[in-house]
């Protein structure tokens, strides 16, 4: 598989992380966003990150100069129509994503693979926006934050995605420093589904807003279970609102299946605007 020319749409945290990772694989990457300010900020941040990696001797100056040449920021109408792969990493809004994919389908050449980094929408729904000819070359590629560090890429085969193409992409990522996982187009894919009970069950163990108990649960899961962070400190870091929203989304997508039911404490925290570290108050206090 030849993946030399990559376009990443969306210069937010995920998009810029994905663009940085592909560039580090010595691919030519065009990073696209509606906001020139966001693009400049993302480019600056990636360059700073590379400079730090040179200081830490993780990358050579020569490698970084080459990467800086390979990464460019563009508006959509400036990018190469012959890109091998386009990855969408914009806001999680289905209507906006579908509108974008319709444009991308028309803009790029027939061989271009279109992929979404969505964490919540079915690939099948987004594929409705593209022509039948493109559908086999449309799939999900779900990266994890920070994309340059987290090794997983969920390769999501939509109803009409070519199995052969998904397998080729799996092998391509496997040959790089990623750990791909092939999965079916189903709510939450693998991680956002299976990880739900890492939060849901501890919430049911503590039941109430009891900080001492939460601290004990976090501590046991780290010490006995070997998890790097406990569920309460992790929810505070992610944002209790964000975590609650993912929980509700998966719960609804599975027809309110009890295994995914949100806990009353999550709603209480969101209602009280105790959203975690970003508000200095979540399950814990951050003064």
């Amino acid at each position, binding site marked *: 598989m030849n993946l030399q020319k990559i376009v990443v749409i969306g210069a937010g945290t995920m998009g810029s992380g994905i663009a940085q990772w592909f560039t580090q694989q010595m691919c030519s990457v065009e990073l696209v966003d509606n906001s020139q300010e966001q693009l400049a900020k993302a480019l600056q941040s990636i360059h700073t990150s590379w400079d730090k990696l040179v200081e830490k001797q993780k990358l050579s100056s020569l490698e970084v100069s080459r990467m800086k040449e390979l990464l460019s920021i563009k508006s959509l109408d400036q990018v190469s129509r012959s890109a091998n792969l386009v990855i969408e990493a914009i806001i999680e809004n289905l209507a906006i994503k579908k509108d974008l994919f319709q444009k991308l389908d028309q803009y790029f050449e027939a061989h271009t693979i279109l992929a979404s980094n969505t964490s919540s929408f079915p690939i099948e729904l987004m594929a409705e926006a593209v022509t039948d000819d493109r559908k086999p070359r449309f799939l999900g590629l779900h990266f994890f934050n920070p994309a340059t560090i987290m090794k997983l890429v969920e390769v999501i085969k939509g109803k009409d995605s070519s199995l052969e193409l998904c397998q080729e992409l799996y092998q391509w990522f496997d040959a790089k420093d990623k750990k791909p*996982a092939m999965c079916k187009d189903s709510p939450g894919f*693998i991680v956002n589904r299976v990880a739900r009970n890492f939060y849901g*069950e501890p919430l049911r163990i503590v039941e109430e807003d009891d900080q001492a108990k939460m601290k*004990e649960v976090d501590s046991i899961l780290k010490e006995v279970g070997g998890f790097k962070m406990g569920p309460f400190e992790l929810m505070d870091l992610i944002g209790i609102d964000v975590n609650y929203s993912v929980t509700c989304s998966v719960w609804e997508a599975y027809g309110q299946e009890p295994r995914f039911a949100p806990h009353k404490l999550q709603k209480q925290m969101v209602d009280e605007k105790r959203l975690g570290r970003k508000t200095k108050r979540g399950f814990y206090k951050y003064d």
Partner: protein
Amino acid sequence: MKNVLAEKPSVGFINMTNVLFDNVLINFGFATKEEKKTLLRSHPAKKVFMDLTCFDPAEFYNEYPNLQGSFAALFCDESKKMEIHFREKNEAVLLKLKGLGFTPIETSIISCGFVFPRTVVQIINEAYFALAEGVATKEDINRAMKFGVNYPKGPFEWSEGKELYVKTLLKELLEKTGDKRYVASQLL
């Protein structure tokens, strides 16, 4: 470390003067709730410390005053870490456990399945549901959880050889709470 649960119950106690340890822990065997209760009834004068990984310590404490402490462990790594709850702290028991190669972590939380087993069996159960629905292979689910969210092990690595524990704890949680979130995957 022996890591396979015996299908045939292996029940008994390690005698430590006037303290009895449930030897299920040591043998990685399995005993039903009734077998555990029978053991407690048969030694009313002894101080008993029992493995309650799959059961609700509150129920046992209420029924058996001779139960002085309980512990839970799925021994998912070589560190042999376990959660232990005391009615009253007993240093001799902690020392004995350490002497047997275990790392006891004290907890004040009384919860069916304690903290780690209860949390991890739910992660394992969901992984089995996903597998049954053909979402991904066992290998890819393990890989996704280890490399997407930094879990120390994949769900199927945790459950390997411990399916009986997983099923028993889910059944107990379902009975205790009546919450269908604990219905076990048919693949388990």
